[in-house]
């Protein structure tokens, strides 16, 4: 055994600032929102859905630039042409269609369509370019859904805050109204409203918003009931702050995660409502295209000209799935306890 010699050199001097280093908080301090965004970015599905939505939205809103033709221009000579992309041989884009007996025909040749005239997604029964219509239709559906959701927020947020804040008789009365509205299935309310209002864009938005603010108001009220018991609200009241300022300064910031999550869930349901109404024929008036009217037109000819329905249906499904997945991700990100 060798003796272990301990000399002065065996020791290393600790620098004074090194201990301070250990005490340092290494991760940057994050606000609630930054933290939520960080969690959201880790969620691959949510990120993919987010970019899918962005891409669809950008393309839809660029439709005046991207659309090759006027979406409402009719051209009876070129009606019901199947999809064709010039100089390619991709299955489904050859301008051919198979009928029920399995015989393949090419309406482009039978209708003497010029070689250079192609319709990427074909044309409908009035010879309107479906590609342009799908672009404009997606845009219209998105606009309706987003505005309806904002209106729904504009009604639901104050309603919920007032109901929760006032409490007592006011609250009971306001909750009764909500109960009555929600005792009729949502869609029936929308349909009845649409029958009374003049057909058009704003009526659809109002009808959709009117039936969906209830959920928002309920959530906001429940949260307000909790928030108003907090000490900082009491402190603010003691200092003589007006209820309106308390709502703006203390309640709404604390409600923001609920608002954002519920808004993200409201948009797909608004898209669904619009598509549904247009599908049964009381939605967007002709000749404007929305995803719902395109589906409804496509469904009429679906058996023989299925291409007219594929693309609007596909876009609608992708939009709905992406919104729902993204909203799910948002909920997990804002409320880590939920998972």
């Amino acid at each position, binding site marked *: 055994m060798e003796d272990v010699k301990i000399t002065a050199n065996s020791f290393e001097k600790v620098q004074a600032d090194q201990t301070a280093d250990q005490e340092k908080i290494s991760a940057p301090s994050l606000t609630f929102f930054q933290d939520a965004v960080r969690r959201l970015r880790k969620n691959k599905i949510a990120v993919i859905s987010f970019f899918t939505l962005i891409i669809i939205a950008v393309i839809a809103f660029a439709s005046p630039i991207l659309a090759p033709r006027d979406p409402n221009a009719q051209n009876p000579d070129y009606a019901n042409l199947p999809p064709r992309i010039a100089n390619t041989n991709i299955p489904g884009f050859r301008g051919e269609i198979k009928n029920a007996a399995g015989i393949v025909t090419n309406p482009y040749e039978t209708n003497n369509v010029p070689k250079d005239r192609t319709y990427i997604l074909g044309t409908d029964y009035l010879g309107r370019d479906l590609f342009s219509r799908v672009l404009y239709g997606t845009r219209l559906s998105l606009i309706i859904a987003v505005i309806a959701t904002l209106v729904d927020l504009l009604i639901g947020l104050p309603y919920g805050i007032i109901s929760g804040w006032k409490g007592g008789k006011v609250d009971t009365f306001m909750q009764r109204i909500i109960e009555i509205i929600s*005792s009729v299935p949502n869609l029936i309310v929308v349909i009845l409203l649409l029958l*009374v209002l003049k057909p058009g864009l704003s009526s659809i938005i109002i009808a959709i918003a009117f039936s969906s603010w209830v959920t928002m108001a309920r959530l906001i009220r429940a949260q307000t009931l909790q928030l108003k018991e907090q000490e900082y609200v009491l402190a603010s009241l003691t200092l003589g702050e007006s209820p309106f300022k308390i709502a703006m300064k203390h309640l709404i910031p604390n409600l923001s995660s609920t608002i954002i999550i519920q808004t993200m869930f409201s948009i797909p349901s608004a898209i669904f409502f619009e598509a549904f109404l247009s599908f*049964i024929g009381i939605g967007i008036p002709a000749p404007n295209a929305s995803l719902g009217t395109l589906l409804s037109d496509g469904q009429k000819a679906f058996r023989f000209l299925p291409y007219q329905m594929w693309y609007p*249906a596909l876009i609608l499904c992708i939009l709905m799935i992406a919104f729902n997945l993204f909203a799910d991700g948002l909920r997990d990100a804002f409320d880590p306890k939920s998972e």
Partner: protein
Amino acid sequence: MLKYILKRLGYMILTLFIVASITFFMMKLMPGTPFSNQDKLSAAQLKIMNEQYGLNKPIWQQYLIYLGNLLHGDFGTSFQFSNQPVLSLITSRLKPSLLIGSQAMIIGSLLGILLGAVAAINKNNWIDSLATFVSIVGISVPSFVLGVLLQFFIAFKWHMFPIAGFDNWQASVLPSLALAVSPLAQTARFMRTEMVDVLNSDYIELSKAKGNTRWQTVVKHTLRNSLIPVITILGPLTANILTGSLVVENIFSIPGIGEQFVKSIMTNDYPTIMGLTIFYALMFMVMLLITDILYSLIDPRIRLTNDKEEN
């Protein structure tokens, strides 16, 4: 309990009264008249028609007459469908809707429970992800898109079921499936959340510690306890199927109440629209009440109180 049910029934009647009143006045505000789409009626003919249906009286009188008739179970007479009383119009179309609706409800909730349970047991692995994805797709894809797709592939291309109509039981399969998917997805999501909760509770630990097999633990302790809260979504599911039926019945030409509702909207048939709205509201509220009663019967921890929504 009895007091609670009576109180709820009282509220239901009040709500129905308000719904009936609102729909009545909304119908009066509606543009167009029920006789406008028949060709060229002379002024005298129009007057006779208006008198026959009581449309020449002041609105408040029409309202009181309508409410009075409602109390006798008289929903008025349809303007469009061969002068049938609305009530018999509804009852004659109830059977197909009930059949398809209940089939959809049974398929949807059973498969949903199964899917949710499988997802919860396999929490955080690929089976769970797959189940979650399936339920998101089910919630996202509207029933009418699904209906048309089923009709195109299964009925039109592969000839497995009738395309449309309601001649035999086979014809009800596809519409039921189209309606079942959304309830299935909702049940699956709800079931998964509940079951994950239950799986984290102490008595499951105890069951494992006792040496029970995984299967015993799941069937005896987890499944039953997670099933109880699932009852609460019966209400929303009913609403879902009711509204879904409006368009699915149209796609498959089922002579049910959903198809009737859409037809009545198209023809300004006020009495039928009003009757069906009240009917839908009634169905929905009865379902919510049954749900609450069932819930309190099955789970003794839940006590129905008068101020339920306050806690």
